[in-house]
């Protein structure tokens, strides 16, 4: 029978491995609690080591976190009434605008048209950046002057899509930190005015412990339906995916895997867990 003491060392090592993979500490601890609860008192077969049992329990625990709420994005978009309005949120520089450009290409590859709305009326060069993407992709762009009302831009794009039979509206927003209450309130306002069909939270796979704070705050300000994790090509440990899925209870839908328009892949929970389990050398 497995006693609590038998687990102390393997679980400590596991906690360090999870932290090394950028799983946030309280999330790592919750996962360990789940494993402990499951294993203590369990009969160990003669051939099994405690380590093997821990690994198995870890796999299950990780899968249950990261597999949360997975839905078929393509199907949902295909079946929804058009235009489908998707708003992208997240902190500064994580890759919202680039992900929108990639998604426009992704949709076009699947026979769906889109219009991009530049709701970032704040950052220097934001209009020029998104315009260049739109031109490269031959996607219609709706943009206002710098300093304009972001909700109004997205609203205009929805009207354009309705008038022109466009399938999907991709609404960008300016990057903001969750500590800025004014900007978070602005995000909540966009959410109320635009009432999007889907809100996708964008974060980067290289993020560490802070991923939980921002995921929680963004989800509170404008409830998210799913997340995109960018920069997965930068040798990230993958733990941010666990943290974001755990605190929001919403699925990771896509991974950004580079700066090209095709560097967007559907997220595969099993593959991520396999990667993470590769972590304990």
């Amino acid at each position, binding site marked *: 029978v497995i006693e609590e003491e038998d687990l102390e060392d393997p679980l400590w090592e596991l906690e*360090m491995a999870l*932290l*090394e*993979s*950028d799983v946030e*500490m309280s999330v790592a601890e919750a996962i360990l609690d789940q494993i402990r609860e499951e294993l203590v008192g369990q009969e160990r077969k003669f051939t099994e080591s405690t380590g093997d049992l821990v690994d198995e329990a870890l796999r299950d625990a990780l899968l249950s976190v990261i597999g949360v709420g997975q839905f078929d994005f393509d199907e949902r978009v295909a079946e929804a009434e058009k235009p489908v309005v998707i708003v992208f949120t997240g*902190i*500064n*520089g*994580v*890759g919202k605008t680039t992900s929108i450009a990639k998604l426009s290409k992704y949709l076009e590859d699947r026979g769906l048209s889109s219009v991009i709305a530049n709701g970032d009326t*704040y*950052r*220097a*060069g*934001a*209009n*020029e*950046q*998104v*315009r*260049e*993407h739109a031109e*490269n992709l031959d996607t219609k762009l709706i943009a206002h002057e710098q300093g304009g009302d972001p909700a109004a831009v997205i609203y205009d794009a929805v009207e354009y899509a309705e008038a022109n039979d466009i399938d999907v509206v991709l609404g960008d927003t300016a990057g903001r*930190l*969750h*500590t*800025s209450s004014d900007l978070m309130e602005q995000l909540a306002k966009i959410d109320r005015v635009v009432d999007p069909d889907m809100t996708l939270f964008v974060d*980067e796979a*290289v*993020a*560490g*412990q*802070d*991923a939980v*704070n*921002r995921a929680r705050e963004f989800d509170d300000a404008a409830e998210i339906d799913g997340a995109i994790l960018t*920069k997965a*090509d*930068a*040798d*990230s*440990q993958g*733990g*941010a995916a666990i943290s974001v899925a755990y605190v929001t209870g919403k699925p990771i839908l896509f991974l950004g895997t580079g*700066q090209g328009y095709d560097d967007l892949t559907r997220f595969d929970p099993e593959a991520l867990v396999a990667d993470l389990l590769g972590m304990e050398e």
Partner: protein
Amino acid sequence: MVLDDLGSSLRGTLDSLRGKSRIDEEDVEKVVKEIQRSLLQADVDVSLVMELSDSIKERSLEEEPPGGTTARDHVLRIVYEELVDLVGESTDLPLEEQTIMLAGLQGSGKTTTAAKMAWWFSKKGLRPAVIQTDTFRPGAYEQAKQMCERAEVDFYGDPDEDDPVTIARDGLEATADADVRIVDTAGRHALEADLIDEIEEIESVVQPDRSLLVLDAAIGQGAKDQAQQFEDSVGVSGVVITKLDGTAKGGGALTAVNETDSTIAFLGSGETVQDIERFEPSGFISRLLGM
């Protein structure tokens, strides 16, 4: 001492030592555990945290507290000394003619930091110029140009040229009148071999007096490998931590200075050109320990 205002759990643990004059292994173990938690939650590299805590433990038990110090103050001083030892003072930046190159991951804040630093140098009475060599990211030229207008500093870029090395060369010539030339580069990470080659080429043309690695305060355990690669490629003389106006603790910067044997130069805490300050160790250490 700066550490008097510690995070609540760490303070609680240390408070249990308040009255004691001698410290035993169990006490130290408890304190070290809390310090480990704080540092790990601040994104400091796991193995670096273990090294630090071993050394704190060893010193706390071996070193004789100076007469009259309580066990609590003794441990506190050691923690502080170890961390100060690691982060060091702010990167030395003489107010004289120089060329500074910025490097770092995509979206870490390089372009914004270039304009902020130019603004900072202009307030010190020097004439700065920013050279934008990013030919890859859409809108990079306009972004840098607009930020430099806001900072009221000189700017060089060439939207029609697609070779960053050429822009760097031409930019140095065009800004010969400036005292401080700040060279912005496109974002890249350690695994992009082509882009790493590219920044090595830019570096060899620019011959910067300093190369600064720009790091997002929220970067996780990847900071170590990234810093190592930039150190190998262009040599890192200092680190800039951005987005400290959020809740991330910036522990990746500690990892980076350890990895590159450098120091921290600037802190960024907002999107406007004035949101920059020189690094100051005690505030940063407080943040790391969760105060």
